[in-house]
């Protein structure tokens, strides 16, 4: 085999040393034989590729992928709105960027031993469940036997959340302790309970297994960030510097089904930027929890069962805006406005919703090194706004300076 052909094959196989690769790429620009050889090598490699055993993709994957060809929602009116203009005018980045942490307590600080045990058990059950829904699990290959028998052997996550929420959590320990419990029970957990219940029943799809995989992963990280002694070894990893890209959030949310207790919604995305959002897993866990809170607030109030989640960078300098929007009735928007802009003693139907928003507010005080929620609200670092028939919720997170692209979670 002549040298050019060998080089073309090595290049197509990706085994050519970097320097030789660059030289070969230069050759491709000017040499027809090199181009032909590469085309031939690529076809040879395609034959190897196509010798793999065929596997089928579920219909939900097709739905997700075809959404790329749908028109994106126009966010320009929202980005030109008064609150975002105000944010643009007022926002100054802190001298030291927040990297997560500080939002948790030791689980042992919870004085109610039964509550402590139940949270511990919840974490252990999720550790057991995670590998059973991973991409290399039997369930991901279509065999649900082990997953179903394991789910049946565990208490229902939905019932566990209901039971835990019925306890007088605020009396247990005020402040950070209550927040840690609420973040654990109300951010990703309701959706996790919904999908695990569905997988435990008869009507489920491969998409449910995938969704449960992401939810387990997120929930475990949220719990480690909330209770810093629940799994100290893994927390050490969570605290290491490692960029997390917006792509991780996009992959997870794009075309997903979301559930908040009995309410279900379809997620649409479109404007996610390329690049990192957070610098450590503990920060990502906090960001994730905030995103779930936005989704949980909006999803049940959508008029058409859909809501949009977007991450927008550079619309406000030094900020990443997380935006959730949905078509809502005036009454439903009124509820959101009450929750976000002032209600302090909600009736029982809005109590959990107020907790969701408080979790975002408290997270924002940490992210912006500020103690006054009222100040942050007045600077529009988070809020609620109505444009035509849609409600918009948002929070602004400090952007990473001079960042490279994000890495894996």
């Amino acid at each position, binding site marked *: 085999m002549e040298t050019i052909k060998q080089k073309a094959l090595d290049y197509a196989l990706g085994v050519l040393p970097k320097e030789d690769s660059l030289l070969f790429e230069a050759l491709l620009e000017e040499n027809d034989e090199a181009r032909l050889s590469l085309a031939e090598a690529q076809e040879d490699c395609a034959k190897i590729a196509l010798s793999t055993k065929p596997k089928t993709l579920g219909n939900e994957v097709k739905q997700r992928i075809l959404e790329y060809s749908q028109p994106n929602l126009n966010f320009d009116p929202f980005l030109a709105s008064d609150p975002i203009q105000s944010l643009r005018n007022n926002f100054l980045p802190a001298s030291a960027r927040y990297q997560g942490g500080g939002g948790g307590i030791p689980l042992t600080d919870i004085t109610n031993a039964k509550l402590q045990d139940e949270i511990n058990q919840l974490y252990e059950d999720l550790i057991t469940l995670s590998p059973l829904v991973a991409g290399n*699990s039997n369930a991901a290959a279509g065999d649900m036997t082990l997953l179903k028998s394991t789910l049946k052997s565990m208490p229902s996550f939905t019932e566990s959340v209901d039971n835990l929420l019925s306890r007088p959590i605020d009396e247990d320990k005020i402040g950070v302790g209550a927040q840690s419990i609420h973040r654990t029970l109300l951010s990703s957990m309701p959706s996790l309970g919904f999908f695990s219940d569905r997988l435990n029943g008869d009507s489920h799809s491969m998409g449910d297994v995938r969704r449960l995989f992401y939810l387990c992963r997120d929930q475990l990280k949220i719990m480690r960030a909330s209770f810093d002694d629940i799994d100290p070894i893994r927390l050490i990893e969570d605290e290491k510097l490692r960029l997390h890209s917006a792509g991780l959030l996009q992959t997870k949310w794009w075309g997903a089904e979301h559930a908040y207790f009995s309410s279900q919604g379809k997620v649409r995305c479109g404007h996610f930027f390329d690049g990192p959002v957070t610098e450590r897993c503990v920060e990502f866990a906090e960001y994730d929890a905030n995103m779930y809170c936005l989704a949980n607030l909006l999803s049940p109030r959508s008029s058409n069962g859909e809501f949009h989640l977007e991450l927008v960078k550079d619309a406000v300098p030094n900020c990443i805006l997380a935006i959730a929007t949905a078509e809502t009735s005036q009454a439903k928007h009124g509820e959101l406005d009450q929750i976000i802009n002032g209600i302090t003693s909600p009736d029982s139907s809005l109590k959990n919703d107020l907790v969701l928003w408080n979790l975002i507010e408290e997270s924002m005080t940490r992210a912006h090194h500020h103690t006054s929620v009222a100040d942050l609200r007045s600077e529009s670092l988070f809020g609620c706004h109505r444009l035509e028939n849609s409600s918009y919720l948002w929070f602004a997170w400090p952007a990473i300076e001079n960042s490279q692209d994000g890495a894996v979670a």
Partner: protein
Amino acid sequence: MLKIKNDLWEKIRDGDSSAFEELYDGFAGAMFSLSLEILGDRWEAEEVIQDIFSVLWKKPEAYSPKKGKFTSWLLVLTRNRSIDRYRSRKRRLDRGETDEILQSRPDQSDKDGAEKATVSDEREHLNRAFSNLPPEQRKVLELSYFKGMNQQSIAEFLDISLGTVKSRTRLGIEKLRNSLSNLRI
């Protein structure tokens, strides 16, 4: 299954969503099978396919006919992105990072229930041709193509010379090409 019209990329470039769907129906399965073979993880393989289709729709100029056949290019991209993920995962495990998912990976080489899907004649032919390669040539191609190992690493791994790796690669490819000369891919 593998018959992709030549003008499909031009239509996608021009914003034709039905062409995008046609490409998915005709070729996503082959891309997914390749990615799953490399990664052994269904969700990661789905993410690779999702990313590639996203790029194709948003930046169709990432491909140009100068880069060879459209379908070959798609498979090169699928393979390279899958190998990148595979290496990244391996690096994390080598660093001893603890991850509840990574730590508990069972081997799932042959368990896909979807394998019951009908194998097309062409793919069966390809599969047979690859399986029929002499084991030493097949091994070198597997390590190189599906595991992304460079030739020096393969030589060390199999305890053979670099020259032997190169010749086995070349001979394997030539045999594959000859036994598939009547196939249009």
